[in-house]
């Protein structure tokens, strides 16, 4: 069963954040929120695994050590 992978995997972390911020450039709060929601849905479908997604939601809701991850 695949588990949520929380090891560092990004080849270009600064580049990722830059691309995300560029996508949000010029958007108001509601439009930004909607863009993020689209992104979450696109990535969730790409991952596809319900167990991994639940673990990711739990981690996002509680990012501290209590998440158990």
């Amino acid at each position: 069963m695949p588990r949520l992978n929380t090891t560092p995997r990004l080849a270009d972390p600064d580049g990722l954040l830059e691309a995300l911020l560029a996508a949000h450039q010029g958007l108001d709060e509601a439009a930004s929120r909607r863009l993020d929601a689209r992104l979450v849905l696109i990535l969730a479908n790409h991952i596809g695994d319900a167990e991994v997604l639940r673990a990711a939601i739990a981690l996002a809701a509680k990012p501290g050590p209590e998440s158990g991850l």
Partner: protein
Amino acid sequence: MSGVEQPGRPAFQPPRYASPPPPRGPEQRAVVIIGAGLVGLTLALDLARRGVASVVLDDDDTVSVGSRAICFAKRSLEIFCRLGLGEAMLAKGVTWQHGRVFFQDREAYRFDLLPEAGHECPAFINLQQYYAEAWLVEACAATGLVELRWKHRLAEMSPRPDGATLTVETPAGGYVLEADWLLACDGARSRVREALALPFTGRAFRDRFLIADVVMQAEFPTERWFWFDPPFHPGQSVLLHKQPDDLWRIDFQLGWEADPEAERDPDRVTARVRSMLGPGVPFRLEWVSVYSFRCRRLERFVHGRTVFLGDSAHQVSPFGARGGNGGIQDADNLGWKLAAVLRGEAGEALIASYDAERVPAAAENILHSTRSTDFISPKTPAAQAYRDAVLDLAEHHAFARPLVNSGRLSRPAVLAGSPLNTPDGFDHGAGPGTPAPDAPVAQEGVPGWLLRHLGAGFCLLVFAAPRPLDLPPRVTPLFITPEPMRGALHDHSGLAAARFGAPAVLLRPDQHVVARFLTLDAAGIAAAHDRAMGRG
């Protein structure tokens, strides 16, 4: 009420039923049903078809006002076919199976609710609730076993271990009625539930909807159309359904701040409809209502000799057509069980199985209807963002379409966890708890449908040539063969065998599968039948 000039009067004239005089003294009856609505009448007719007499009390003297529960799902239609009303409903109802979802000015998604052929009944028909009720009243009266007491209002009830004592008020005076079994089909504001002080808990939604029955000649196809944030009603949703008699049902979401009184004003409603249809389309308003809704239920539906069915037991939001269809399935579930108990063939354990089966079914309906409501009526900026994100993506990206939730339309409950089922090892086809799938069959060369041949009792489907079988009393064999054969149904398409997935299948009187068998082992079949009668 009138909108733009459109001649004519309502196609349906509500009947006024005579209120019988109260009985002269106290009475004792085996079965008393409270509420002559869709669910109470379906239950009375089901019981009568099984030879059980009932008294039905209703505080009114007519059928439903307005179209109300208009979407009758395939399973409900199959139940009405069993009860003898299927033809009338299929002939009058508007058949549909496709739906479209629009977002702003674009189509985002379309769906097909019955992509597979080989079923007698369609995915849905739309039919005004008042037609269904009026035909149920006629059918009940024709059995001679249903005593309909209009304008007999339940005033008080007190439960007894062996029934309930009812105080009834009528225009001509009150009386006392002793019931061995009390079946509460008296709707969301159930007097019976109130008398027993049972908690009815769940969620209330802070939103209001305007519902309008509009008479017009329009070109819309016979599909369910749902708009999110359309140009003609910005920021809210709209649902359109076609009904018989050139009647169209339109639901406008209004938001929680809307004033229900002001929104009922015909001029205001007319303006809303006009902006949807555009100028120059004549129409007439026939019925208007403003509603908000709740999703809630009783914890249990069986309370000694009192049993709750339909909205008195569970209430859902209208998206998904799970209220009326859920209630009809309640009646379908309880009728044969109560008849068996009254005939002395089963104990009250069989009635307890109504709880075990219909409470999870109601929970499933509430879950779906709550999720739909949360999608249609987002309550937080986050909910709004996700809802709009789904709709942004759905038009061009198939992966997002299953996330669009404009109502998950009623599907029959699969009673998978029922104590009446005998688990089996088959890995495909209709397993225990599933309502029997239909299939085209022929008898002596005459084409027909499998469900029409099931009869009123337990039925053992045998996918083999006719042969003598050692079966429990009241279990009738039905032989089904791939080639025409005397004494068997001809499964000419092979769909019956494929859909059941086993050589022999035991069906309950409500057409649900309870057990499947690899061999015609008499002891195994008898044990499964005992279990299905609550004697396991």
